[in-house]
């Protein structure tokens, strides 16, 4: 009998065109290459410069999300895209996809959205696949049991030309999560707590597999939130073994296998979970039952604590002090009840339907506090339609929030959706880096539930007060 293998090892082995040697990395085959307007133009230029074809347009799929507008008139016509350079990127992607035969869900397409939202939504993301994209949050797709990771633009060019990447085999890290998440504590709180525990470089060189009964109990949207933020712990990929929850999610999606092919796929997917006794290079255990709603207080996602917690003291740590100074906080300070200026609900981390439902459940019959700007940006046009069919848009608008077209939006502000200098933004996105949401913007990462509670009260709020 062969040695027990992890989920990661099974996918890795089945995609080795050539295994690694002492002198050369493995040649790893890529099943699905997702591209967008920001990290692809220079890779298309390389194909042109070298006179190379794009080897597998049928395994390449394009959309636009990072720099695209979220104002309806700029998306569907009537007004020009306000950021001129972004408009140029949009046109460049259209031109490149047409020239190289790549399917593109363009600006006006009803299926467009954030690349990591629409991959699973369309059923393109499937268990056992290798998936890459020129974006670090490609780790999201691992929630369906795929091996998915972000790459740079040179590597985008490699995949264009050869459908392969040169890769050294990463190590594996099992994050075993046990216990029931308490009321008011969700997947975002869980992953923030994991990052707080292992640190922003704790997963470097590793692929994380999230395991345990707490993970098994999560719905797909929640699993995607967890895998999405693997990169914030330094891990290029996060994975969750496919199970009945995964199969139920994928069944009937337009790009998922259909009919007889579906049955065959299920048979193959059921072989993927890590074998009993499979060894990981490292393992950590997390007790979910003790977790609380989390919020970041600093300028990386590892600087995180319970909403009601106290910022730690780190005497003599100049970098820590600089980070707190940027945030306008002090060691030993409690930030619960601190005023909030902006609330952003959206991004590839928390822009799915269940996230919007959660936020709306808090806002129903309530108002966004006076002086707070709340922006709700669905992760895809499909999420937007589904939310509108349920009346979620009315809840947000009647509460005083803005309801927009889909895109990355205020997560990184490339399209001009920015947080003003010095303002405090409670954001459901993934990065609280200095300047990420605008020059001088102060980002506090939190769950959709916590963010919505902060919007209602205008202050950092433990959402359990409003449950």
């Amino acid at each position, binding site marked *: 009998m062969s040695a027990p293998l992890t989920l990661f090892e099974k996918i890795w082995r*089945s995609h080795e*065109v*050539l295994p690694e040697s*002492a*002198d*050369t*990395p493995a*040649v790893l*085959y890529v*099943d699905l290459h997702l591209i967008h307007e*920001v*990290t692809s*133009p*220079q890779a298309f*230029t*390389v194909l042109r410069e070298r006179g*190379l074809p794009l080897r597998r347009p049928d395994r390449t799929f394009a959309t636009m999300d*990072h*720099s695209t507008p979220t104002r309806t008139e700029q998306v569907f016509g009537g007004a020009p895209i306000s*950021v001129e*350079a972004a408009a*140029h*990127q949009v046109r*460049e992607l259209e031109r490149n996809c047409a020239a190289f035969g790549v399917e593109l869900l363009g600006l006006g397409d009803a299926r467009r959205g954030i690349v990591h939202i629409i991959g699973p939504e369309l059923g393109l993301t499937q268990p056992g*696949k290798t998936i890459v994209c020129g*974006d*670090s949050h490609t780790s999201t797709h691992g929630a369906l049991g795929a091996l998915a990771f*972000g*790459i*740079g*633009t*040179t*590597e985008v*060019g*490699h995949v264009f*030309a*050869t*459908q*392969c990447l*040169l890769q*050294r085999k*990463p190590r594996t890290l099992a994050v075993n999560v046990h216990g029931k998440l308490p009321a008011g504590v969700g997947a975002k709180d869980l992953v923030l707590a994991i990052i707080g525990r292992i640190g*922003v*470089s704790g997963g*470097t060189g590793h692929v994380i597999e999230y395991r345990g009964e707490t993970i098994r109990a999560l719905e797909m949207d929640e699993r995607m939130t967890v895998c999405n933020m693997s*990169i914030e712990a*330094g891990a*290029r990929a996060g994975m969750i073994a496919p199970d009945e929850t995964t199969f139920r999610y994928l069944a009937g999606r337009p790009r998922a296998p259909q009919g007889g*092919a579906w049955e065959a796929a299920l048979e193959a997917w059921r072989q993927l979970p890590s074998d009993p006794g499979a060894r990981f290079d490292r393992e950590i255990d997390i007790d979910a039952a003790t977790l609380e709603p989390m919020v970041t207080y600093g300028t*990386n996602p590892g600087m995180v604590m319970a909403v009601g917690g106290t910022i730690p003291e780190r005497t003599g740590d100049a*970098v820590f002090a600089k980070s707190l100074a940027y945030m306008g906080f002090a060691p030993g300070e409690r930030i619960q009840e601190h005023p909030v200026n902006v609330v952003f609900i959206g991004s590839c981390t928390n822009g799915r339907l269940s996230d919007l439902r959660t936020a709306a459940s808090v806002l129903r019959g309530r108002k966004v506090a006076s002086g707070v700007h709340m922006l709700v940006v669905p992760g895809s046009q499909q999420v937007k339609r589904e939310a509108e069919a349920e009346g979620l848009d009315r809840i947000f608008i009647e509460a005083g929030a803005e309801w927009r077209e889909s895109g990355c939006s205020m997560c*990184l*502000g*490339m399209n001009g959706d920015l947080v003003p200098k010095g303002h405090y933004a409670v954001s459901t996105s993934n*990065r609280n*880096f*200095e*300047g*990420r949401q605008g*020059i001088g913007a102060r980002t506090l990462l939190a769950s959709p539930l916590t963010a919505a509670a902060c919007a209602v009260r205008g202050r950092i709020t433990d959402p359990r007060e409003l449950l």
Partner: protein
Amino acid sequence: MEPIRTLRSRTVVLAVNDIDTDQIIPARFLTTTTREGLGRHLFADWRFGPDGAPRADFVLNQPQSSGSSILVAGNNFGCGSSREHAPWALTDFGLRAVVSTQIADIFRNNALKNGLLPVIVEPSTHRWLLEHPGAEVTIDLDTTSLTLPTGETARFPLEPFARYCLMNGVDELGFLLGREAEIAAYETLRAPA
């Protein structure tokens, strides 16, 4: 790409941990469709004030940093996004190596493809470098070592194939294109739909 065998330079020290790619080049400069000229945006929000004027207290604006090609940074350099604009900005500015105790995975891959050396050293060597900004050091790819002005030498890990590519000025795409027969065979026999 120019072959690299040795690099000798004074260091510039940026003693900050977890420098993310949003600091190296903020997202508002990613709307470009070329890879040229990004050095002017390197560390934009640290280098320049709100009025666009250089900040005198930022190390890369100080005269002693001029001409230096080796950046010594705090632990976990290059974390965050996959933007290759980060190494493009660093190399366009004139930097050819980043020395730290840990360098984020995607950034390290991107750096190697652009002739920017990711040099990972032990905490003791790192501490010495942080305490001696402007020290003249030598990085040698033949021996994969960094030599301090004290004569002390520290070895650093470097993936052998990336090292070969750097020393010979070749890129990885040529190697991959040369595996066409194996890739085609894989697609015929093994690739899932």
